[in-house]
């Protein structure tokens, strides 16, 4: 009898505190429910995603939204979903469009990122940008009120595991795929994978000079091997492993074509002028295609 009463109390408390019966629609048009207790705030076109993950011991966020207005919308949704605190906020990368909103959640949230994220954020910090944002009239100014630069508490190297309540989060450092400190997050029980910005969805990625296509292909291979059911990229609509397949196919075609043209004696400039990759005609971010060719050229030339 004692056990039964305990179980009933537990269930009542669990449903009251952790999991009110809300559908994603109740949270707003940008929210999508991916699995029980896992909600993605899918950014407006081109903007970053942010995910709310409920556990019996509190909330884990993946990134903090593109702008403080997004962070405030996410905070509002969290309050609708649970009365529990946000315990952890995991950064898939340190760039401002994933991290400016830290101040909305931390304290109390503990921020976790790959090593180098703190330094990257401090270097990129522009007080003028934030001052302007706070002075903006309307929603943005209001949302940015109280801004503080909050850098990660925990910076791991290589790999890390976070255990909270019934959930386990495996963090993997992705080398040279997008920023100075990219993290993929894998929930093995739920088979949900956060790929960070290592891949985009029908979108050319911005390949900075230190980004390497072989490293990106290695990251894609590793992430595919996890056999995820749901794939949530840093930017773009969540989907399945097809997101990884599409990007793998694109980078392989790009590498093959650039290699072929380089072997024909064509210069980087000539390749940039002539090269087209079939199947990418409707992709966003075409201004980034030249830096994709540069990265392929570097890989082909072994430099």
């Amino acid at each position, binding site marked *: 009898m004692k056990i039964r009463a305990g179980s009933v109390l537990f269930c009542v408390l669990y449903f009251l505190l952790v999991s009110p019966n809300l559908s994603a629609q109740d949270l707003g048009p940008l929210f999508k429910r991916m699995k029980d207790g896992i909600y993605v705030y899918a950014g407006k076109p081109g903007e970053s995603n942010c995910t709310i993950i409920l556990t019996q011991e509190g909330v884990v966020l993946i990134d903090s939204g593109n702008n403080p207005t997004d962070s405030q919308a996410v905070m509002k949704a969290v309050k609708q979903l649970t009365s529990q605190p946000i315990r952890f906020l995991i950064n898939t990368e340190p760039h401002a469009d994933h991290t400016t909103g830290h101040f909305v959640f931390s304290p109390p949230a503990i921020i976790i990122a790959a090593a180098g994220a*703190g330094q990257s954020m401090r270097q990129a910090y522009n007080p003028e940008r934030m001052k302007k944002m706070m002075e903006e009239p309307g929603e943005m100014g209001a949302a940015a009120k109280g801004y503080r630069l909050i850098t990660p508490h*925990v*910076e791991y190297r290589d790999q*890390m595991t976070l*255990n909270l309540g019934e959930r386990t989060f495996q963090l993997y450092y992705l080398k040279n795929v997008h920023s100075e400190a990219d993290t993929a997050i894998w929930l093995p029980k739920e088979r949900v994978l956060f790929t960070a910005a290592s891949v985009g969805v029908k979108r050319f990625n911005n390949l900075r000079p230190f980004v390497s296509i072989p490293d990106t292909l290695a990251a894609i291979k590793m992430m595919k091997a996890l056999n995820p059911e749901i794939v949530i990229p840093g930017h773009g609509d969540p989907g399945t492993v097809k997101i990884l397949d599409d990007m793998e196919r694109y980078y392989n075609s790009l590498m093959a074509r650039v290699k072929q043209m380089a072997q024909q004696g064509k210069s980087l400039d000539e390749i940039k002028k002539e090269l087209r990759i079939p199947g990418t005609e409707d992709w966003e971010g075409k201004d980034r295609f030249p830096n994709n060719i540069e990265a392929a050229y570097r890989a082909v030339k072994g430099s």
Partner: protein
Amino acid sequence: MKAKASFMLMAIVSLAVVRSVDAQDLGPQFQKVKEGIYVYVGKEFNSNCGVILTQEGVVLIDSGHNPTDSRAILNAIKKLTSMPVRFLIDTEPHPDHTTGHFVFSPPAIVIAHEGASESMRSRERESPDRIQKMMTVSPEMRAALEGYRFIPPHIEYRQKMTLNVRERTFELMYLKGVHSEADTAVWLAKERVLFSASAVVVNQYNILRPFVTIPDILAAAKMMKGLNPEVVIPGHGIPGTVKIFEDSEQYYALLLDRVGKMVREGKSLDQIKNELKMPEYDGWASKERIPSNIEAAYKAVKGS
């Protein structure tokens, strides 16, 4: 005026954060090793616990040997600050460092090296009545165990990790094959304070389990000496300086030398165990561990 108000606020905050308490006021087990860094030194080679104050709360290194120690530590923290214990870093997963987790977590986030959680779970499986037995030790122990829950680490890092809590930075380094399945050295670079885990102990023979290797211990000691710490806090034993490493290095060098000579003379492991004497270390505690030390030296000498 605004500046004055801010100053007043800061002064009030500092009062709330770090109260002026001497280590003596905390109890006989406490030593202050640096500003805001205290060690609860375990009685008779029991495990140590580090209490580190920051402007954002407290960081603990281990949770005390027994729950009675954990309660004494929590009482001391309450005298030192009104801020919460934010993090608890395990230097190893063994019960004499981790049983007291429940006293601090929640709210503390427990951090350890990969494998710590599995190590703790396997001990729980092996002795499911461990806590019940512990309760029979004394009425104090029973009271201290009130509300016991098994709390494995929230965060398990691999190889290296950095923890930033406002003005302090903690570098966590995995020490391979030195004592347990998941040993962590904790280095405060600015303060030059090093928690060396149970890689080395003080005036005591260490227990060298079959997976522990003397070359790994020596490599860990070399790496830690290379950090050039001012204060060294071992997992067990009185805090000191790098001399703690030097003493261990000398001991293991002598042990390896003597075992090596006897192996070359054709002696078996059993003969070495019977005959080997280390009179230089007669004053060290835990002599029952000498055979496991000889076995580890024998493995190192034989390259197995």
